[in-house]
Every structure is written in structure tokens, then in C-alpha cells.
């Protein structure tokens, strides 16, 4: 089988290998990790016709520059609005392209978004931990963070010329306020504090990494002494530290903690929240847990349909031209 290889000419902080994550180990202190924006990650794999959850590279605002030392190989880039440059050709994320040996591919912060995903037509050779390559950023366990100078080797590398071009962006994600279910420790806050959390605007602070996103805004004082027993945490938990500052916990969250959780972001809104950047403002809105389940189900349906559409190969250029001709034939008949 063909191999492909890249040298990492530059990797910013928090550029890591990620897959669909390793659920099932929270009882041992291990969060699922995996892509911060699971929708964009899945779209990148689907656009190449890869198996769902195949390991790719999560690119932070720090950016990534790869030099292809062995190729060619087709890759897909999705997520946010990042700037992509292949040789002299400049484009943006949500694209499939083929990288030839000797070419340089750079993916850097563009107009919007915090995370982009590079999926590859091949398998990235990297260490696994607990059966997955997803990187747990605080320990470095799993595939790991990319370091400038390292080599990335792909096995089973292939060309997918029938998949080149733009990737259709998802249009079914909610816009507007981030939807939360209050609790599970909202009893540690005065009613008006919870009301303020749900009505006031917050700003994403610079303290944003794979563990969580600290917010700036009105202080959310705790109602009593801060000595609750450590309780389980999930991806999306909004915990409030002793100084009244809320943090949304994300892919590499701690699994338990003693700070009360005022609310929890529903899973369909975590991908879009993860794409917020420092300085962007947001509001939260309360929904019931039953509404949250309904939203999760409708999101899953839309996501499945969207990924199925993205995963359809569009054909080679010749095939596409022929199809266009046939379509014209139908129209003019």
C-alpha cells in the first residue's frame, strides 16, 4: 500500500491528533476527548469517504504548516473559516484537495472559528491510548500534540480525485443563544444569580483551551460556603469558581470537581460554542431537559442526513462534465 508523509514545518500550540474520542472511562478520571467541533471533524472525514471517526488533525488558531515529503494524498479541511494555502493556491476551510510530494500545505487562523480539521485519505500512524488515538491534551496521552519538525506518516494513502472541491457547510445548526439546562447544582446560587446568568451577555476570555472556556461577564456569587463534595462533570458543564467566574468545560474536562455547576450546555450546541473565539460575546437561554432530548434527536437526524450528502463522491472532472451535459439534455428536451 502507498505511504505518504509530511514534515511538520510549523505547529502552533494545541494542534493535536483527534478521533471520535474514548467514551466509557470517566469513572477512571478520563474524559472522552476527541474533536472539539465534532460536526466539522465528521464532515472532513465524510468528504473523503472515510470511516466515521478516523483520526485526523485538530488545528488550533496557532495554525499548522505541513511539507509533503511523500505523496500524493488527498486531504479534506473543514471547520470554522480558516485560511488554507497549498503551494501558491489560496483557499479556505471546507475543501478537499490533493497534496503532491514537495508541496507545502498551510492552515492558519482565518476570519472565524477556533478549530479546523484535516482529515486524510489514509491512516495516520500514531500511538493509541485506551484503544484510541484522540489526544488528551493535559497528559499528552493518545496520538499526541504535533511538534514542529516531526514527521507524520500515513499508511494506505490514496488519491480521491472524485472528491476534490468544496465541502458543503452544515446549515442546520442553531444560531442565537447557547441553549442550556440549568443545574445540576443551581441550588448553590440565588435565584437572581441564575436569572442573571440566563439574561446577561458574556464574553469568551483568553483562557480557552481543550479543557474549557472561561467566560467574562457579571460575577455569579455562590449562595453559601464553598464546600460541596466533588461531583461528576460532563462536557458542557458550566462550573462557577469561588470568585464567581463561569467556565464551560469541554472535550478534555476534569471528570469530577467541587465547584458548583450552574447549568449544562446541551450537546447539539457544543460544536458551535467551541468555534467561538476570545472576545466574542454570547448569551445562554434555558430549555427543559425534555426539550434538550428533542433537540439532540433532531440534531442527530439532520447530522446523519448532512454527512450522508457530504460523503457522496461527486465524480472525476470528466464524470462531472458528462453529468452536467446529461442534465442539460433533460432540461432542454
Amino acid at each position, binding site marked *: 500500500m502507498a505511504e505518504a508523509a509530511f514534515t511538520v514545518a510549523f505547529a502552533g500550540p494545541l494542534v493535536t491528533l483527534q478521533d471520535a474520542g474514548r467514551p466509557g472511562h*470517566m469513572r477512571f*478520571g478520563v474524559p472522552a476527548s476527541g474533536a472539539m467541533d465534532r460536526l466539522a471533524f465528521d464532515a472532513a472525514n465524510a468528504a473523503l469517504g472515510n470511516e466515521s471517526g478516523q483520526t485526523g488533525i485538530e488545528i488550533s488558531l496557532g495554525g499548522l504548516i505541513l511539507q509533503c515529503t511523500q505523496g500524493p494524498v488527498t486531504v479534506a479541511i473543514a471547520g470554522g473559516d480558516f485560511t488554507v494555502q497549498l503551494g501558491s493556491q489560496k483557499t479556505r476551510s471546507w475543501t478537499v484537495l490533493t497534496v503532491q510530494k514537495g508541496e507545502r500545505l498551510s492552515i492558519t487562523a482565518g476570519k472565524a472559528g477556533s478549530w479546523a480539521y484535516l482529515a486524510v485519505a489514509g491512516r495516520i500512524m500514531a500511538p493509541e491510548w485506551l484503544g484510541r488515538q484522540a489526544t488528551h491534551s493535559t497528559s499528552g496521552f493518545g496520538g499526541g500534540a504535533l511538534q514542529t519538525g516531526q514527521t507524520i506518516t500515513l499508511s494506505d494513502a490514496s488519491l480521491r480525485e472524485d472528491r476534490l472541491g468544496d465541502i458543503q457547510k452544515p446549515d442546520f445548526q442553531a444560531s442565537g443563544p447557547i441553549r442550556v439546562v440549568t*443545574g*445540576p447544582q443551581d441550588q448553590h446560587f440565588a435565584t437572581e444569580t441564575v436569572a442573571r446568568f440566563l439574561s446577561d451577555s458574556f464574553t469568551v476570555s483568553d483562557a480557552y483551551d481543550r479543557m474549557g472556556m472561561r467566560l467574562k461577564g457579571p460575577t455569579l456569587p455562590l449562595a453559601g460556603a464553598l464546600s460541596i463534595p*466533588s461531583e*461528576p462533570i460532563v462536557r458542557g458543564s458550566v462550573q462557577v469558581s469561588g470568585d464567581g467566574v463561569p467556565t464551560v468545560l469541554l472535550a478534555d474536562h*476534569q471528570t469530577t470537581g467541587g465547584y458548583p455547576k450552574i447549568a449544562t450546555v446541551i450537546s447539539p450546541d457544543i460544536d458551535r460554542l467551541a468555534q467561538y473565539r476570545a472576545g466574542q460575546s454570547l448569551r445562554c437561554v434555558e430549555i427543559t431537559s425534555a426539550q434538550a432530548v428533542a433537540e*439532540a*434527536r433532531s440534531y442527530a437526524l439532520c447530522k446523519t442526513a448532512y454527512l450522508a450528502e457530504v460523503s457522496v463522491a461527486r465524480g472525476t472532472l470528466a464524470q462531472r462534465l458528462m453529468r452536467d451535459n446529461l442534465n442539460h439534455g433533460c432540461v432542454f428536451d
Partner: protein
Amino acid sequence: MAPEFKAIADHALLVTFADEISDSAHGAVLALDAALGADPPEGMIETVPAMVNLLVSFDPIATDHDAIKTHVEGCLRATIKSPSAGTSRIVQVCYDAPFSPDLGAVSAATGLAPEAVIKAHLAGDFRVLMYGFAPGYAYLSGIPDAIQVPRKPAPVRDVPAGSVIIAGPQCLVTTLTMPTGWSIIGRSPTAILTGDPDHPFLFDVGDRVTFERIDAATFAKLTKAGADG
């Protein structure tokens, strides 16, 4: 108190047995955890035991909070409340310098000689309460009253993996180089992250732990064997 149920977003239910840490609350957490492990409801992904509550995480496509709650209530009615004994595990620890930088401070704070602090630690009846903070960080209850010390006012950075640290009634053997505000009284060569794919973590929540003292020469031999193996 009767167990309290709280919905977490679209994908989890938190079952809380008490507001304060107690053996009976933790026993109820372990009993429910075992019952759900033996008879998982449809759509359950995993459970996370903590001090006074159990998180039941589920796939919202397959089930919902109400169905999980009904199943949990069935388990609670059927559960025998005495917690299981837990497996006994041995953790080796070297209390010699330079592995015990805070032994002197604990000695000063408690008025016990360093050897008496060590003796008290070895006599502790330890149980795995829960994991948290980082992979493999198992919180053990059972530090004897005589050597309970508060956390330091500020954490110390870059505390090596394998450090045996204490704060209040709890003890922990670290698995990563991380900051901690707990007192470092020894270093262990025992791997909590075992590297065994079938049993990657040494403890299950609820296990009993005994510390076994080793000297610096044994520590060096064991860590070398571990590195070579």
C-alpha cells in the same frame, strides 16, 4: 434523605444520596453503580461514581431522563444497601528524602515525629472514593485524624508522577507531573496506569488500599525494573 434526581442537559442523570460525604452515602453510590453495571438500562453509556452521587450518562437518541430514572428506581428498590468489600490493593511507598519534601511540615503541623507520621499513614484504612482531576487520580479516604493537614495556600508546580500526597482525610497517588496544593509525603513505584489493556487502571472505585513501606534502594530497583519492562 431519599435519592434526588437531576437532569443534566440532554444526556445524563445525576443521582444524589446526600449533601455531605458519609460512608453510607458513598456505599449507596457504589451499590447503585454495581447494580447498573450488572443490569444496564438501554442506551446507557457509562456511570461515574463520586463522593455522594452517581452520574448516569446515556445516548439521548436511544433513551431519555425519565426512562433512565425509572430503571434506576427499580435498581434502588432491589439493591441491598451494604456496599461490596472491594478488592484489596497494595501500593508501595518510599518515604525517604528526596521523595517526601513535606514530611517535615506535616510533622511540625501535627506535632508528631516524622516516623510517627509515616506509621500513622501506613496504619490508615484506605478506600477508593472516586477518580477525578486527571486520568488515574484516585481519591482515597482514610487518612487518620492525627495526620490530617489542610491544603497549602498555593499549589506547587511540577510535582512528579508517583507522588503520594495528602490533604484533610484524603490521600492520592499522582499519575502525571502536575501542580498540587496537597502535602507530598512519599513516592510510589506502583503504576496506577498499568499499561495493561484489559485492566488499564489499578483500582476500581470501592477498592481497599494498603500502603507498604519500601526503602530508597528498593524504590530505585523497582522503578528501574518498571522502566526496563
